[in-house]
């Protein structure tokens, strides 16, 4: 294996700037998508645990639809196919008119996709609490909405801190799929540096290190959050 090592490439311009900007895009895409995934996923997940057949069915369809099509295919559907289905003016606006079309499409697509996974975690969290707590809340005269607000959700979200963290890390890694529609995030920039300089080893190492650093920070944050929200006297809620 003969290879000309040149770690210096990582701190030379424009490559350093490429990496920084790529990393920024990774973070921005991930966070935007996460806000969407968390809020929509919570709503869908809650819908799946209600007594209403209609709400449950809608939520189930959403989950099945979004998790049974590969993310990359969904990315293409939103970017290439969706504008074709709109009236011409609206289609043009989505393609070119709206601000940062690639970024917006990628963030929305990733958010909608991950919402289906977040929904499953929220549902599992609520269901793990059991009928007894729901009954106790209702028996006191709380309305079903109040039972969710004051009894079920505060416990459910505590239980699912670890799986939600792992969903966030999934969104963070999946943000790399945005490169297929032209968002120049970390992985795309690493590839670009490799193509320009043939220093693939250095470029991919840099990207890998960036991903590992963020993953480690998020895991540390999770432990901190988990400790902060843990309920005194309870060893593990999930074990019920």
């Amino acid at each position, binding site marked *: 294996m003969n290879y000309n090592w040149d770690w210096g490439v990582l701190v030379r311009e424009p490559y350093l700037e490429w990496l920084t900007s790529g990393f920024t895009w990774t973070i921005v895409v991930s966070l935007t998508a996460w806000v969407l995934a968390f809020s929509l996923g919570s709503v869908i997940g809650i819908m799946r645990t209600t007594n209403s057949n209609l709400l449950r069915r809608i939520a189930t369809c959403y989950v099945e639809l979004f998790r049974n099509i590969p993310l990359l295919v969904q990315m293409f559907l939103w970017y290439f196919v969706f504008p074709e289905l709109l009236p011409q003016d609206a289609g043009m606006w989505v393609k070119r008119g709206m601000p940062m079309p690639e970024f917006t499409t990628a963030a929305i697509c990733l958010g909608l996709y991950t919402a289906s996974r977040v929904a499953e975690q929220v549902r599992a969290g609520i269901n793990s609490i059991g009928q007894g707590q729901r009954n106790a809340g209702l028996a*006191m005269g709380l309305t079903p909405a*109040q039972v969710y607000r*004051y009894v079920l959700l505060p416990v459910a979200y505590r239980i699912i801190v670890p799986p939600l963290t792992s969903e966030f890390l999934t969104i963070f890694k999946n943000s790399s799929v945005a490169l297929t529609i032209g968002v120049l995030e970390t992985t795309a920039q690493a590839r670009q540096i490799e193509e320009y300089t043939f220093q693939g080893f250095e470029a991919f190492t840099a990207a890998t290190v960036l991903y590992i650093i963020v993953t480690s920070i998020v895991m540390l944050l999770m432990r901190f959050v988990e400790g902060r929200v843990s309920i005194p006297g309870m060893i593990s809620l999930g074990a019920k």
Partner: protein
Amino acid sequence: MIQLQDVSKWYGDFQVLDTCSTAVSKGEVVVVCGPSGSGKSTLIKCVNGLEPFQKGDITVDDVSVGDKATDLPKLRSRIGMVFQNFELFPHITVAENIKLAQLKVLNRNEAEAGQKAMQLLERVELADQADKFPAQLSGGQQQRVAIARALAMDPIAMLFDEPTSALDPEMINEVLDVMVELASDGMTMMVVTHEMGFARRVANRVIFMDEGRIEEDCSKDEFFDSQRGDRAQTFLSKILHH
């Protein structure tokens, strides 16, 4: 106060309640017993509408539970219920557990709710535990808090669904004592339990259920003294001699 008229309930094809009728008058203490799977827990959950039923009607203070137009949350807020597994809310403190529905359902203010909570905690002798979380208490203590939580709503009647069956033996009495005191204060109570000692001490009437039907419904004295149906006899001899 509580009236059940020909209540029947099915889970799919399986009938869990079969034309059950009975009544609990004001100030009366009624004990419901029977083997597991006899439908007694389901019956008591029908009284405040936690379990829907398909036939018959239940009224509490002349309000129909089965009627779709009934404001169930409002009705439930007037009936206290205590569960087998306590069902204190684990993420809030003991005092907060007792205040929650006072604040959110009865719209009492914080001071009023807090005062009521402390007063009831004194009554169940747990005032010093107010700021602990449920999981930091013993089972018996948790169940006493659960009773206080139900009483905080100033209920017109109390439902108990096997309140001592999840407890270690040494903790059963502390809970029964609170219930006896409550009965002697004139509270209307419907109690699903196997504690026949409790039934002897405070019950006015005893209901025996089997396979979804009310097999016996008579005064305490009749139940314990007279000839009973075979099933009730067998059941009683099993639980009295274990």
